[in-house]
Structures are given as structure tokens and as C-alpha cells.
């Protein structure tokens, strides 16, 4: 049986932990609101750019000179997986879920005889993947030194990927991130970035109604696509990073909420034990005094 002093110390330490988790939960809640706002704000841009590309690719798809970024290299032997995770831990299963999804994808691709290369964004995913697939990682970028996410960071990452593609280092590029559904659920998602040819089977991105008029381009379609496609990659990375940061905060908030509650439960239990022990001690003290008095 632990002594009263020991119990007191434990209660105190759990209380301190609870204070920390509570503070972290509140910080995450505040950051979540901001991250969500950013994610919502960036949506019109990515929606529009997707619509424009769908529109352009419909007219370019059949032609010979279509850019490789749009139609791919014609093979899918070397696949680059861009795994976006967070830089900080203590956010529940957030990173583990993304890594698990990545692992499934890697196993499936390797079973199909493809070569897999990994591009890690974020420290946590990198740490977990290094253990299993250290030799597959070709790039690793941590976003730790950037306080806020902005389009410039995404453009840098996108530039790296595009130049790797131009150098013929891979044929297909897939982006792995966590889609922010709501505070409780984040779904790890895989999105194919290169080739950018929009899957028309979804049916959502039907061409715009032009009222019978022909679309004009200035400069020509190819000139526009040449600039637009790399930008589309940047945009997709940017929105993935924003979704990730919202998801990370949501996940952290839930995790810290749980931790705070568990700490509360633990304090209750320890306080009960503390009081019981104290009463037992008083009782035994009394019995000693009374039996001492009776003996006289």
C-alpha cells in the first residue's frame, strides 16, 4: 500500500499533466478554426483550376502533342508517392493512419512489380516510413520552420516534383494526405497528380456550357497548359497541406480531450484511494488510543 505522501505526489503530478493536455486541447481548437478557415478559402481556387484543366484536357486529350504532365509517359513502372504528414506528434492516430495507407499502397504496388519511390513531407511520416522503407525515400521535406502555410511553400514542393518528373525519375505521381471530413474524422486519401488527366467517369466535371461558341486561347492551348499544369500540382499540394493541418489539429484536439478526461478519471480514483487510506489510518489510530485507555 502506497503511503499518503506517495498518493499526494501522484495526484499532484497527474493534475499537472491534466493542465498541460487541457492547454494543448485549447490551443489545437484555436488553431483548428484558423486552419479550417484557410482550407475553406483555398477551395474556390482549386475547384476552378480543376474545372479549367478538365475543360482544356477534353480538347487536348486526343492530340499527339499533349504535354506529358497531362497524359503521362505511357508507362506506370516507377511510381512516386508523396506522403504528407504532420511535423508534430501527440495527435492521436493521425499520422499512423496516413502511414498505414501508404504502407498498403506500397505493398500493393510492389506486389504488382512496380518500383516505388517516396517523397515525404512532414517529420512524423518520415520517421515511421524510414524504419520500413528507408531505401525508397528519395526526398524528405520538413515544414517545421514555416510557421504558417502559404502558397509559396507548396510552389517550392511542386517545383521539386515537376523537375523530378521532367528528369524522368518517375512515371506516375500520387499524393497521399488526410482529407478533413470533420473534427472527429480524417480519411487518408490517395490522389493521382501526374498524369493530370481528369477522370471523366466521375461525371461531376462536365464541360461548361459555352452557348455554342468556341473557346479561344491566348496564347494557344499548349502554352497555357504548360503553365497551368505545374500550377495545378502546386495547388493540389497546397490544398492537401491545408487539409492535413486542419486534420492534424482536429485529431490533436480529440486526442487531448481524451487525455484530459482520462487524467480526470485518474485523479478521482487516486483521491478516493487517498481518502480511504487516510480514514483507515485514523481508524487504526483511534483503536490504538481506545484500547490503550481501556487497558488502564
Amino acid at each position, binding site marked *: 500500500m502506497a503511503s499518503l505522501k506517495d498518493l499526494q505526489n501522484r495526484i499532484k503530478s497527474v493534475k499537472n499533466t491534466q493542465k498541460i493536455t487541457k492547454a494543448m486541447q485549447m490551443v489545437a481548437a484555436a488553431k483548428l478554426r484558423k486552419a479550417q478557415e484557410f482550407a475553406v*478559402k*483555398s477551395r*474556390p481556387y482549386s475547384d*476552378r483550376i480543376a474545372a*479549367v484543366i478538365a475543360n482544356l484536357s477534353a480538347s487536348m486529350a486526343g492530340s499527339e502533342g499533349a504535354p506529358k504532365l497531362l497524359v503521362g509517359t505511357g508507362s506506370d513502372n516507377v511510381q512516386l508517392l508523396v506522403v504528407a504528414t504532420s511535423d508534430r506528434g501527440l495527435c492521436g492516430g493521425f499520422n499512423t493512419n496516413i502511414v498505414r495507407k501508404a504502407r498498403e499502397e506500397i505493398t500493393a504496388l510492389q506486389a504488382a512489380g512496380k518500383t516505388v519511390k517516396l517523397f515525404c513531407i512532414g517529420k512524423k511520416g518520415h520517421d515511421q516510413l524510414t524504419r520500413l522503407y528507408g531505401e525508397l525515400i528519395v526526398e524528405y521535406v520538413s515544414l517545421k520552420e514555416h510557421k504558417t502555410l502559404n502558397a509559396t511553400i507548396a510552389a517550392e514542393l511542386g517545383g521539386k516534383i515537376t523537375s523530378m518528373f521532367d528528369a524522368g525519375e518517375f512515371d506516375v505521381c500520387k499524393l497521399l494526405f488526410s482529407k478533413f471530413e470533420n473534427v472527429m474524422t480524417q480519411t487518408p486519401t490517395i490522389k493521382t497528380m501526374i498524369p493530370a488527366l481528369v477522370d471523366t467517369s466521375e461525371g461531376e466535371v462536365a464541360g461548361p456550357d459555352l452557348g455554342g461558341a468556341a*473557346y*479561344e486561347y*491566348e496564347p494557344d492551348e499548349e502554352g*497555357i497548359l504548360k503553365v497551368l499544369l505545374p500550377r495545378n500540382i502546386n495547388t493540389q499540394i*497546397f490544398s492537401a497541406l491545408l487539409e492535413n493541418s486542419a486534420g492534424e489539429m482536429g485529431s490533436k484536439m480529440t486526442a487531448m480531450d481524451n487525455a484530459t478526461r482520462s487524467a480526470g478519471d485518474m485523479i478521482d480514483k487516486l483521491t478516493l484511494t487517498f481518502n480511504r487510506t487516510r480514514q483507515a489510518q485514523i481508524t487504526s489510530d483511534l483503536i490504538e488510543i481506545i484500547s490503550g485507555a481501556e487497558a488502564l
Partner: protein
Amino acid sequence: MADKLQFSLVSPEAELFSGLVDQVDVPGTEGDFGVLPDHAPFMAAIRTGAITVFNDGVETKYMIQGGFADVMPSGLTILAEQCTPLSDLSAEALAEDITKAEQALAAAEGDDSLDAAQHLDGLKLVQGTL
């Protein structure tokens, strides 16, 4: 509404403007162009410069650095790479950008130097309107 143009200006970070206007002047890579309601479907790349939005006799200017203008029967959408309302733009920041652009121009070769020169010209034009 045949006499108003649905115009939206979006950058990766935010939607800067969305609403009905009379006319929008856009600096295209092949030359400036104005968009009025019922413009023919049209898509153009944008160079660095100022977008002017005309509405009810009021002119609003935005500084834009790269992007696309997409004119559709439903209206005009500008996908800007970087965009700031001219009223929020500080002369110092712009001067800094110009110095950077000059350095980039000095370092650039071939086709890049053309782009760099165009970028610098656009920045200087905007500086002139401030």
C-alpha cells in the same frame, strides 16, 4: 442581368472578390484586354500588372503576378498566383520586389530573361500608378 459581368478573383490563399461589375481590364501575356458582359468564351494567361475593375463609376485596382483569366458565358474568373488590392500595397514592398526582379533579370538567360523582363516591366508600371 445582361448589363453586368459576374466577376470572381481568386488566389490560392483566398477569394478576393466575387460579385457583379461593369467591366474588368486584365493584363494578358499577349496584351491588355477588357472584359465586358457577354464576352466570347476566352482563356488567357496573365502577366504581372494591375487589374482594373470598373463598377458604377468606381475603379478598383488589384496588383496581380501571374495567373489565368477564364471568360465564360457565366462570367469572368481570374485565377491569380499572387494578388493584392492596390490600396493594401506598400511602396517599400514593391520597391523590394523590383530590386529582386532586377537581380533575377540580370541572372536569367534565354527565354527566362524575356519572362523576367516582362515581370519587371509590370512591377514598374504598377509602381507608376501608386
